[in-house]
């Protein structure tokens, strides 16, 4: 039986690192995958200490305070101008963000 790929004790593989890089939209050079694998595996190995904490009946806490939605008054306020929004754009055509052609022929 191969290791359960979702087990935390299973060693992180280079294939998993490449997959995670893809999910994270990062272009990692093949020559650097092993370096990242070693570093990430060391951190994950350390994090495994969380398994020893007794968490029976403990609810997850996503935020420091149990806060409720706070709604703003329903009054229109001015938002950023088009000029302000576009001033940091890598490429602009008129009042629009310009992007390279993203669909291949036949798409």
């Amino acid at each position, binding site marked *: 039986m191969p290791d359960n790929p979702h087990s935390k004790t299973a060693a992180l593989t280079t294939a998993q690192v490449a997959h*995670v890089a893809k999910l994270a939209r*990062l272009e990692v050079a093949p020559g650097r995958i092993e370096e990242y694998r070693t570093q990430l595996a*060391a951190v994950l190995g350390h994090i495994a200490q*969380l398994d020893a904490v007794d968490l029976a009946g403990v609810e*997850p806490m996503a935020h420091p305070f149990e806060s409720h939605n706070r709604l703003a008054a329903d009054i229109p306020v001015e938002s950023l101008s088009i000029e302000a*929004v576009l001033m940091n754009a890598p490429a602009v055509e008129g009042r629009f963000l310009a992007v390279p052609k993203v669909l*291949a022929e036949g798409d």
Partner: protein
Amino acid sequence: MTSPAHNTPTHNTPSDMTALRDAVATGTTTAESICAGMLAVTAERNTEINAFHEVFAEHALEAARRVDSDARAGRPLPPLAGMPIAIKDNVATTLGRTTCSSRMLENYRSPFDATAVERLAHAGAVVMGKTNMDEFAMGSSGEHCKWGPVRNPWDSSRVPGGSSAGSAAAVAGGMCAAAIGSDTGGSIRQPASFCGIVGLKPTYGRISRWGLVAFGSSLDQIGPMTRSVRDAALMLDVMSGIDERDSTTADRPPTELAKTVERPIEGLRVGIPRQYMSDANDSEVNAAVNAAADAYRALGATIVSVELPLTDVGISTYYVIAPAEASSNLARYDGIRYGHRAQLQPGEDLFTLYARSRSEGFGPEVQRRIMLGTYMLSSGYYDAYYKRALQVRRRIKQEFDQAFTACDVLLGPTAPTPAFGFGANSDPLAMYLCDVYTVNTNIAGICGVSIPAGFAERNGKHLPIGVQLQANAFEEDRLLRAARMLERALAATTGAHAPKA
């Protein structure tokens, strides 16, 4: 280069910001001369220390002259009138750029000011410049910076700590009256400790995060980095309070701590977590904590031993929650609307545009944390890592609540060591472990402050050591009054250790 001692008043010397502000208000000095003096120090020292990425000299002098003209006309001065304040480069300013010390945002200009900056300016402060930092606030040394490493003004062969590296170095080096930093896991307190200044991480929700570039949204807080506890109180008063633009700000009025900070707390109970006094700490660090405890005893406070058994799992909890939140927050950098965009070769697709822009724009530590967070949030691993870490988070908060039934404030080290040398923690995990005493403050959302408490001698140089006080959520009044008691008590002894100019 001279020793920084004459530029690094670590206690209430006449040159903390409160004293400078009073001197301007009474006409003893002018805002322009204070500003010009700090600009001169910056011009002399910034090439070596690299605290500032951008300095707004003309803007600062002009703003200072306006304050002087108001003072001459007898107009009432706001609380920070003419005070040159440095802003960490992950806090949005319409002046200059907001780069997060990253290639990703190397040309980014914010169309708005952060709420904290707006409130500082409203209080009369002068935005003096933007400070270097570990890229996207991910680091504990100031080495991971697109604009080159920041150096410690006490010993330029050592790091200033991070990630608010430039803010700490600028305050310690006498280049500004005070600074703001951000603290996600210790990024204000640890560099404050390494640089011999005061660094306050307020309670989560105290200060608006509007305009703070998001890293870990449930952990991030902006806070003051100053030469004295009373300066930190003054800045918190100015920056705190509800902000309609950040729905996570606490619905509480701004603090008024400058009024109370000088008042000692009768019957103060100081808890020392047994787990904080580890043999793994440098001996001078534990000695500084013990000396602080002695000083409190001499002031009539009660010292109690408390237990925080989950101290050691804080790093593991943090390095799940923070990278998970970061991987989500940093997904916005896609090379389309703003930030770095890679050049594509003919025939390359949209995926390549995203991935190449991100890989060219982010440094290795940022990419490491994005991958870590992405992995732990990915299908099949979410419960094992993220959900579990959030459960431990609740346990950590419960442990603090329990400890605060026995004491008013917690005392311990800010960091296990004084400032280390460049490259000393090049292994990522080793760097993460430096934050063992600071991450749990953020995980629980409570408040903490590092104040100077002594020195360690290394290679003939004096390196500052900070001690940390923590108090429960929204107990900044108690926290800073207790810190002020200690600061006053230690002023004589630590001052005697300061290196001669």
